[in-house]
């Protein structure tokens, strides 16, 4: 009698288990087999390890150059800053252009302080030519470019009356460079204000 009841209960349990399994399969069919409709994208423009390494290296070269400058070793400081221009950044990282432009500005000033005015001008012009967008760093390059024009003018002034006209041209060019820097700064500031 008990055996018969147990048999009945067993059949019932198996039936219910199969039914529940079927229903669970129906309700959870998309959980495991089908991929989600949405998933978190892995964009390439997030801050990644490669960018952080590049920024850290740039930071270290700047620190090194600063130590050399404080020690009066402008040549070593210049070499250290030049190494920043050789750093590899992630492709398309906006920080790369900003860091390089800032390094060029410092490099140009170091060159000017060492009397290498033409080399300084080339460094700035290369930076401006390579810039893809207007930025405060590009504006700073124009500022440094103006300083270089001023340095040229001072050099021409020292050469005597014959170079006075050229010195005037350099001062005008310096003013134009400063104006360009001011123009970019104003434009960017306006854009940033509008974004807030």
């Amino acid at each position, binding site marked *: 009698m008990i055996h018969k009841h147990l048999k009945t209960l067993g059949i019932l349990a198996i039936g219910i288990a199969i039914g529940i399994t079927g229903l669970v399969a129906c309700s959870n069919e998309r959980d495991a087999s089908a991929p989600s409709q949405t998933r978190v994208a892995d964009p390439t423009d997030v801050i990644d390890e490669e960018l952080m390494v590049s920024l850290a290296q740039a930071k270290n070269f700047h620190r090194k150059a600063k130590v050399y400058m404080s020690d009066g070793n402008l040549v070593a400081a210049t070499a250290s800053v030049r190494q920043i221009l050789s750093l590899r950044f992630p492709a398309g990282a906006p920080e790369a252009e900003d860091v390089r432009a800032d390094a060029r500005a410092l490099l140009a000033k170091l060159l000017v302080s060492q009397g290498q005015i033409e080399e300084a001008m080339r460094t700035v012009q290369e930076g401006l030519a390579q810039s893809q967008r207007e930025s405060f*760093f590009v504006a700073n390059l124009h500022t440094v470019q103006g300083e270089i024009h001023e340095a040229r003018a001072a050099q021409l002034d020292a050469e005597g009356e014959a170079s006075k006209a050229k010195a005037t041209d350099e001062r005008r060019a310096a003013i134009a460079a400063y104006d360009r820097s001011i123009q970019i700064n104003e434009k960017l500031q306006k854009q940033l204000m509008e974004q807030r």
Partner: protein
Amino acid sequence: MASHDDDFLTSPVPEPDAEATPSERAHAKTFADIVDKTLVGRTPVAMSADDRALLEVATVISAANGGMELAASKQRSIVEDALRQAIGGVGAGTSGSVTPIARGRVKRWMPWAVAATSTLVAAAAVLVLWLRAPQQTTIVHETAAIPASWTSRPADPLVGPIAREHAGDASSRIDYLFADRLDGYRERRLSGGKP
């Protein structure tokens, strides 16, 4: 009475057309009374073996002719016991605790019905899973949902306009930029890359 019976049984068989003797008539009347009493349930306590044998034959003949009616409850009990035995139930003799046949059948087939229904549902579910075509996945790039602090971006908002007297202060600016990007990088890593 025993001697009379013995005489009756051992005496020669009379002719078919022979007139019944008074003794035979008396014996027939007595036996008829016994049969009548037995049919109404009043069986005599004691009787001869020959009379008992004749009485049993008479009862069987009477029952075969439909002359005996069982009580309704007794009839129902006997029928249900027989049917229960026929479908594999417990033996007879327990009429008092007999389950009605209809309810017994339901009880017997219910587990099978549940099992069959569940199996059908499961089979249908498996069939639906198998036949349904995989839905096309739409990958939504959630770049817009990623916080700006996690992204590689221009440093202009961080640095602001660079004054002429700070034109060569690139070291300070790179320190500031590095610290800012490190915050975003750590935030993204610690959150598992999900906003």
